[in-house]
């Protein structure tokens, strides 16, 4: 049946995996103690979400926080909750509905790694004792399941918690309001007023999973789906970067000797440090991009908003068939969509209108990568942060159709998007609208997510 899909393996495949392993070979070309390639993605414009790709396994974690009353038994602590959903998106073997055994196991593992090991300082989440604390929730979405969910989910959750920023909250002195309301007045500061705060993490626990074969003698790190199906058992070690072990998890399967276990724990500690280093580097890249954006936003605020308005008004895309032709023509350089949607030569026609001026395609390419994966460690573009941000915006705006052929295989269609959105040469197109938003109307520049945190009790 379909539901056995993930664990189904033919005998010859199993034998092949085992035989290759005897020669220290794995079917995807790795050595026994190699991780698959780990990639991190942090969305540029939000705090608290991370996508981790471990080979083809892809997991997204989203951190959200709400300021509410604490649990009565722990009045001076916030809380940390994990929710893992194995939706059919990741694998046809997963079913909709209540979390199954696998999801519960993954959830429990995250709790052991990040909450029970006291990795996150919950007392620091207290704003007003007994009244208001931060309840932090981590939703882990498995998007693609190609083996070793435990490590990928742990890494995604950790990355999201490290990238998470919460608005600063301050308590008004005096505390007592009117009448019987003894609730203190808690003020939340918008992110553009006070820098949002990161969570304080005492250590970085990482899950390292081994697949065990042949009575525990043969071992692979980071087993793929097929290896997991062939394995006789699994062992997950949760280790910190300082060589401490937070938890061991061995769900069933064959038993292994103590000496082998200790050997694997040592390997796990070394690997955890290695992986954490990559994670830190990715976060540094994300942090730089974040600062660059903030500086850009501040800079734009200082600039003449009126001028920007005029500039932006120069080019607009008009939805065809509704606006009158005169107005569309007035849109300087804007791709008129009637032309685009016209029967023949559509791309050539509009391409002419959008021919980029003065920027070669390699620059545009870099711009596109920057925008696509801000989380990747990368060199800072050009001098100064303000300039850097401007270049990013400019490059993105300028990629016309001419940069299409060089684009990464991710099928990033921003160029066509720009064409449709009607972005013109040299002006920021709507992809940057979020930055511009702050410039044009500073008060409404908050993101939707942020708007949930409104000042309380003021």
């Amino acid at each position, binding site marked *: 049946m379909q539901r056995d899909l993930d664990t189904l393996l033919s005998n010859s495949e199993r034998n092949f995996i085992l035989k290759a392993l005897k020669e220290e070979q794995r079917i995807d070309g790795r050595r026994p103690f190699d991780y698959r390639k780990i990639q991190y993605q942090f969305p540029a414009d939000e705090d608290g979400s991370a996508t981790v790709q471990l080979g083809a396994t892809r997991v*997204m974690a989203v951190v959200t926080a709400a300021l509410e009353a604490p649990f009565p038994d722990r009045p001076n602590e916030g809380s940390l909750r994990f929710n893992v959903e194995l939706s059919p998106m990741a694998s*046809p073997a997963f079913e909709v509905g209540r979390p199954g055994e696998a999801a519960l196991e993954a959830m429990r593992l995250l709790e052991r790694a990040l909450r029970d090991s006291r990795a996150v300082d919950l007392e620091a989440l207290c704003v007003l004792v007994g009244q208001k604390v931060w309840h932090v929730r981590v939703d882990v979405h498995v998007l693609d399941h190609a083996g070793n969910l435990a490590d990928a989910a742990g890494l995604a959750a950790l990355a999201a918690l490290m990238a998470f920023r919460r608005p600063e909250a301050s308590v008004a002195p005096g505390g007592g309001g009117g009448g019987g309301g003894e609730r203190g007045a808690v003020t939340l500061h918008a992110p553009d007023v006070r820098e949002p705060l990161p969570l304080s993490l005492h250590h970085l626990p990482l899950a390292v999973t081994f697949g065990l074969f042949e009575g525990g003698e043969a071992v692979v790190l980071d087993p793929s789906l097929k290896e997991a199906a062939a394995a006789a058992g699994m062992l997950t070690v949760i280790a910190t970067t300082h060589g401490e072990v937070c938890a061991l998890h061995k769900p069933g399967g064959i038993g292994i000797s103590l000496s082998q276990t200790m050997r694997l724990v040592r390997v796990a500690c070394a690997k955890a440090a290695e992986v954490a280093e990559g994670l830190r580097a990715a976060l540094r890249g994300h942090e730089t991009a974040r600062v660059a954006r903030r500086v850009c936003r501040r800079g734009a605020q200082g600039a003449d908003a009126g001028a920007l308005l005029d500039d*932006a008004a120069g080019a607009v895309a008009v939805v065809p068939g509704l606006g009158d032709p005169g107005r569309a023509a007035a849109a300087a350089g804007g791709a008129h*969509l009637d032309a685009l949607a016209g029967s023949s030569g559509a791309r050539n026609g509009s391409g002419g209108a959008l021919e980029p001026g003065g920027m070669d395609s390699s620059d545009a390419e870099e711009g596109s990568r920057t925008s696509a994966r801000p989380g990747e460690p990368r060199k800072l573009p050009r001098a100064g942060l303000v300039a850097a941000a401007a270049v990013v915006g400019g490059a993105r705006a300028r990629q016309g159709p001419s940069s299409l052929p060089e684009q990464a295989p991710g099928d990033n269609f921003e160029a*066509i998007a720009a064409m449709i959105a009607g972005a013109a040469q040299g002006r920021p197109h709507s992809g940057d609208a979020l930055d511009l938003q702050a410039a044009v109307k500073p008060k409404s520049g908050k993101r939707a997510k942020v708007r949930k945190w409104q000042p309380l009790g003021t």
Partner: protein
Amino acid sequence: MSCTELAGPGPGSGKELLRANGRSAHQLRSMQCERGPLQRADGSARWCQGGSVVLAAVHGPRGTASRKEDPERAVVEIVFRPRSGLAGPAERLAEATVRRTVEGVLIAALHPRTAVTVVLQVLSEDGGLLACALCAASAALVDAAVPLARTFVAATLAKTSEGVLLVDPDAAEEEAADAVATLAFAARGEAPGDVAPTLADGVLACRSAGPLSDGDFLAAVDLGRAAARCVAVFARASLEKSLSALV
């Protein structure tokens, strides 16, 4: 048409109505479509509409539990998962809307007793989520090579308190709007090699919430159709690009 007046100063005035995010009233946000990002699914697509991003995965047509199957056609199952938290009534209504829309274009009689499952995962939300989910579902169904009579595209409109119709609103605009409407249209090329798909005359799916006058609503349908046409052109171009790698 009335909506031209509604959209702000007339053509001669030289000043366009500008939104807080620098767009004009009839301007869509930038779109991205990544086809086949997932390995396990039979088909998948990631659709970005400005700040809203939805990942869609399609499984099937494949066998399903016998209580769900239909002896004469393939059944459609939709799973809509929010970015954080658990699925509630809003998500279930979105599931129903996407399901009926997919049922409208799927050639279901070809695969009796099977199910086509579409899983939609919100990666990031900033307005126009239903339209984004519909587009992602459409792209993923195409990627999965499920037999479809047509594809479909969708667009979102918002009517501001000043009575202006905005195309493709972001979350802040949706929040402030009097009414929001999502419209989906079936699309297909009318001739081989057609770059610009033709949209069907009628509305395939529609959901409006908030007070509107009849005129506003019909104007919104027209405007939504025009906006959806832009989306269809983009979807087609993105599809051709992804297929060109195969040829």
